[in-house]
């Protein structure tokens, strides 16, 4: 069964450093998403991406964040200058559009020291 994959599984970084989280969505999917889950809290939407552009973003997704689909398979989330409060589990998801469900990856745990 096809699945969304994410790398790395755990990323530790120093405050102020840039990080790039990587995702490989399901191959025939057209819509891509990033969500995050701060420890003990609910899953929150960050951004959705379709046709090589952002289609929707939340207030969390400020200028420190960016997304890119650099090739036909990868989908990345970049945080330019990490803050302590960026520590969270980041989930990538994809869907084939319409009303279909989103499929989530296993997550990248980001720890900012």
């Amino acid at each position, binding site marked *: 069964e096809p699945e*969304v994959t994410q790398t790395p599984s755990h990323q530790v970084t120093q405050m102020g450093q840039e990080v790039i989280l990587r995702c490989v969505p399901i191959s025939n999917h057209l819509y891509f998403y990033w*969500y995050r889950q701060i420890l003990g*809290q*609910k899953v929150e*939407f960050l951004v959705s991406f379709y046709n090589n552009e952002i289609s929707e973003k*939340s207030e969390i997704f400020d200028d420190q964040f960016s997304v890119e689909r650099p090739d036909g398979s990868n989908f990345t989330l970049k945080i330019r200058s990490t803050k302590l409060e960026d520590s969270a589990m980041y989930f990538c998801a994809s869907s084939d559009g319409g*009303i279909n469900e*989103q499929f989530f990856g296993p997550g990248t745990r980001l720890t900012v020291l």
Partner: protein
Amino acid sequence: AQSVAQPEDQVNVAEGNPLTVKCTYSVSGNPYLFWYVQYPNRGLQFLLKYITGDNLVKGSYGFEAEFNKSQTSFHLKKPSALVSDSALYFCAVRRRMDTGRRALTFGSGTRLQVQP
């Protein structure tokens, strides 16, 4: 704005007994509703969805959910719980009319503990 409430942080049930995990939602217009399950150190796995039609939706692993428009609820149920069902369960909503806005709004999650 849309929101989801899962009023119980934890639900405890004995193996073999029926289980219910509650979810209520608030959204303008008609909703798309989803249940996801999260096992330790894993991502979110899709269980089932309500789009339209029959109010009783059947999903993976014997789970089902009932959409109740008047009560704005979408409770998750299973007739006979298994120890392996122990996990964190999330309800999520999306507005049906927002064809260009697909962000899911999640509830805070309910931890299901099934005792042997």
